């Protein structure tokens, strides 16, 4: 019984958000625990927030989605490739690269965030490719920041795949690339799911990097950045703030309901390895 109470307490903040996002500001201030008087207000609040130019829900939702999906696809592909090479072709250089990747996991984002901006600015001037203020640059950065963990986890998994399999394929006349793309890559599926979940949740929710790189005031905003800039401009307007929070939470809650087993499994595996 006590357990049930705990569980209810755990989800109650979400219930409060849902309840209060369907009220007018005055109603919330009067009594935040009361039931909303009419459901029509819900649509008004959410509609208002969605259309607000500071939040611009659909465009920031799309940005978040593009950034997350693009980063994850590239990250999975490239880190699988790298992990496989690092695991199978052992030279002094390859073990050094692997160590460098693993060691870099320790570096907190704060330690590199400022020089990162100036490095990217220099790269931008040098190559003419836009790194700052662009979705591409953000994806490029995520690819790396997620890369350490991905390489580390996938590397461990590749070790478990018998080398004889690859030898057999090579004898049958398969090229290196063929061995990787036709055989290894599909075999890596389970561990890739783990990587996608771990890095996906982090990228989706990340605030600091997208707030620095494309900038809080810039045209490109991910959902967390949009939520902050929206909330920042409506201090104490709880009806709007809560509707905005709810809108920012809904996508991931829906995803969780459909894929909870995989998500929990993936996050736990990632922590243990």
């Amino acid at each position, binding site marked *: 019984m006590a357990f049930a109470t705990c569980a209810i307490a*755990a989800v109650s*903040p979400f219930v409060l958000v849902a309840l209060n996002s369907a009220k007018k500001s005055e109603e919330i*201030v009067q009594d935040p*625990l009361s039931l909303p008087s009419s459901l029509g207000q819900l649509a008004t609040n959410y509609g208002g927030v969605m259309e607000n130019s500071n939040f611009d829900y659909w465009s920031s939702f799309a940005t978040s989605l593009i950034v997350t999906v693009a980063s994850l696809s590239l990250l999975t592909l490239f880190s699988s490739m*790298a992990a496989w090479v690092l695991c199978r072709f052992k030279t002094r250089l390859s073990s050094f690269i692997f160590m460098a990747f693993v060691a870099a996991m320790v570096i907190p984002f*704060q330690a*590199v965030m400022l020089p990162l901006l100036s490095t990217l600015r220099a790269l931008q001037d040098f190559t003419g490719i836009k790194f700052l203020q662009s979705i591409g640059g953000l994806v490029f950065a995520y690819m790396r920041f997620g890369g350490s963990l991905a390489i580390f986890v996938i590397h461990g998994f590749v070790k478990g795949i018998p080398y004889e399999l690859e030898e057999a394929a090579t004898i049958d006349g398969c090229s290196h690339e063929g061995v990787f793309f036709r055989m290894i890559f599909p075999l890596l599926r389970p561990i890739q799911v783990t990587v996608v979940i771990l890095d996906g949740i982090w990228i989706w929710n*990340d605030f600091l990097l997208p707030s620095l790189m494309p900038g809080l005031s810039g045209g490109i905003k991910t959902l967390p950045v949009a939520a902050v800039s929206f909330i920042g401009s409506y201090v104490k307007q709880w009806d709007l703030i809560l509707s905005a929070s709810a809108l920012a939470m809904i996508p991931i809650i829906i995803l969780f309901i459909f894929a909870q087993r995989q998500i929990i499994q993936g996050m736990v595996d990632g922590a243990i390895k």
Partner: protein
Amino acid sequence: MFLAPLVLSFLATVMTPFILGVFYSMTDWTGVKCENFVGLENYAKMFKTNDYIYSHVITAIFTVMNMFLVNALGFALALLCSSKIRGKQAYRMAFFIPNLIGGIVLGYVWQFIFNKVLLSASGGVSMLSDPNLALSSIVIVSAWQYSGYIMMIYYTGLQTVPTDVLEAAQIDGANTLQTMARIKIPMISQTFTVCIFLTLVNSFKQFDLNLAITAGAPSRLVGMGVYHSTEFLALNIYNTVIGKNQYALGQTKAVVFFVLLAAVSLAQVAISKRKEVEM
């Protein structure tokens, strides 16, 4: 060839910035240009600023409180979840959900709860206006957000304890408490190491909740100085740069931040290695 994409991006986003960062911390960098090499001056200056020292203290207090609370809660919930109760799945979901949502959004939601809901329920003042209570508020939210995750790791660990060992203990007349202390806890000691370090590192790096719930407020008087009572290290670095525009100083603090975290990670590796030898 296969390595190229990640290695290139690694060089551009981590190695170069990291080396540059250490270099910048020894100059008078303004974010755009640096003119003079000043050696360790920034480091000396940094340790003389009291608000920075205060951030270290408050981060340490938060880390210890949070580590203890999250692990205690997580382990207790894991035990309950692995016992025979109905609707396990639903409970696990309920505890796990907060962990999936970004700290920024959760922070605003809880700010609402502390400032409006709990206020109208007690009729008093907001918890967030008292330095000590504000710190506890962040601990509460962080524990709420994080213990579901830690619970799942402990839960997975508990599943690996073989049932025949537990049955043997039961036949030998061990009670629940003895089974717990003598069998379950020792058998999952590796899981404890993982969880404790995970919470240690994460509490130490706490930024999102800190920014969204209190942003460092309220102020606290210590001796002659006024401090942001809940400004943790990560936020202190952020404010030094974004708020005060002191790029070189902020970068210096970030380097120290890295050194502290690296020390923690080395300790973790050393402890896990020693455990493996024992087993």
